[in-house]
């Protein structure tokens, strides 16, 4: 599915943990401005895929092209600078730092003060709760608020491509809707989004396209509405 207009294009990606292969040759692409969701059960390899994009793990073979440049051998700090920012699974906020300090760290690579201010304003309009809790330690926030902080913190780095790893994990349905609505809004502001989810219904509602991973391989892909109505998907992920 090679496509010249791909913003990020992954080809035959193989990733191993020691001798155990977790991704057996994954290929996928995301175009500029899209929301693409990656669906799959626990242990399928979704987090591993995002970790290799973010430069946390070196793939053993395959390529990752971002904006036409290979990035599979570039280290994580440089990847953030180029505009690929990840909000990790389980939120991973810095729990003994304040909300404000967490946001500041999100802007670690951004040295443009004015831009930092503008983004901060935007983060506060997306998640007004964060503004009320700026001085609080991140570890004292509720799960939903921590997720808002994790996403807000990623935005502070001024992402071009935002990687969201299971943002709905462990949250009440109402909060899930809020978070995914925010993801949609972020996308409408021009940020390309890769959304990893187990909650297929919620993810497919906001995505343009989706891929399904099973044990390290892509087994299906297509337009979001087509996937939503695909009987196999309905059986496996939508409880229908």
């Amino acid at each position: 599915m090679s496509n010249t207009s791909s913003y990020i294009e992954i080809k035959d990606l193989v990733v191993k943990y020691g001798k155990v292969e977790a991704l057996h040759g994954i290929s996928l692409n995301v175009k500029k401005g899209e929301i693409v969701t990656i669906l799959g059960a626990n242990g399928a390899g979704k987090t591993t895929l995002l970790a290799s994009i973010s430069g946390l793990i070196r793939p053993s073979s395959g390529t990752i092209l971002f904006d036409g440049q290979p990035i599979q051998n570039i280290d994580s700090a440089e990847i953030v600078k180029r505009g690929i920012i990840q909000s990790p699974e389980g939120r991973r906020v810095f729990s003994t730092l304040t909300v404000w300090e967490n946001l500041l760290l999100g802007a670690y690579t951004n040295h443009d003060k004015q831009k930092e201010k503008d983004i901060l304003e935007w983060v506060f309009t997306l998640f007004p709760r964060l503004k009320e809790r700026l001085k609080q330690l991140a570890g004292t926030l509720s799960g939903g608020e921590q997720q808002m902080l994790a996403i807000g913190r990623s935005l502070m780095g001024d992402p071009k491509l935002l990687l969201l790893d299971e943002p709905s994990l462990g949250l009440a349905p109402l909060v899930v809707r809020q978070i995914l609505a925010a993801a949609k809004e972020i996308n409408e502001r021009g940020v390309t989004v890769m959304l990893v989810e187990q909650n297929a219904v919620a993810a497919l509602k906001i995505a343009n396209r989706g891929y399904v991973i099973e044990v390290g391989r892509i087994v299906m892909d297509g337009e979001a509405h087509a996937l939503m109505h695909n009987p196999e998907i309905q059986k496996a992920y939508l409880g229908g």
Partner: protein
Amino acid sequence: MDIFITQLSNGLAIGSIYALVALGYTMVYGILRLINFAHGDLFTIGAYFGLTILVSFALQGNVSPLIIPWILIIMAAIGVAIIGFLLERVAYRPLRNANRLAAVVSAFGASIFFANALKLIYSPNRQSYPADIINLPNIPIFGVDIQSKRLIMFGTAVLLMALLYWYINHTRTGTAIRAVAIDQGAAKLMGINVNKIISLVFIIGPALGGAAGVLMGLFYGQIHPEMGFSFGLKAFVAAIIGGIGNIPGAMLGGLLLGVVEAIAGGYVSGSWKDAIAFGALIVILIFRPTGILGERVADKI
């Protein structure tokens, strides 16, 4: 009461040195879960650098006694910081993903290397800072004459700690150091270069340790190549008392250890002071196993 105030001032002075050294243990532990057993030797190296600078630039008599400590501290701190930086590169970084025991062995190796290098370069015998470098009158506090050099020593150490505290808590890089100590993976996702932060910690900790060595030489006079062993051990205990990995904890632990030790020495006897001090500290650890300000569970050592 007089004994109490005198011993309190002695205790705070030596305690502030323990605290400076304890900071190096605690910062490295916080970021790598590694106990840098060579840190005590960096303190010793600082003391020797200070003496060398003092002698080779003939500072005494030519420069104000209030300025001399700062010249020595800054130059020795820079020298020891370079050694700390190299220590991490050579002895610890290659073992980052090896098992923990390998790094411990490497730390002891580095410690032995430093002590012996000092013996070779200087001499295995004691050496002395001139006794009269800082020759100022005593200052009365609550009716008790306190040696002004104790005050200068304490004030200098506290100032260095205040600077560190400000840097760690109020600058972006300081915040990044704390973030790396909490979650390296998440810190990488912020675009923080974790290796650079680790190097920075191996610059700051040894710089403070080197500064402490200079203060030790200036105010207690005698130095020898192996003094870092027992002194480092005490500073390490101070870090544990405060809660290892916790920066204000190391400051508090150092001061507390110094004071308990001095008071025990003043009221009981000099030869019992270590036993009493360590006994008191064991009691603290019985009631707070993670140290006074430590929060995390005791999976530490």
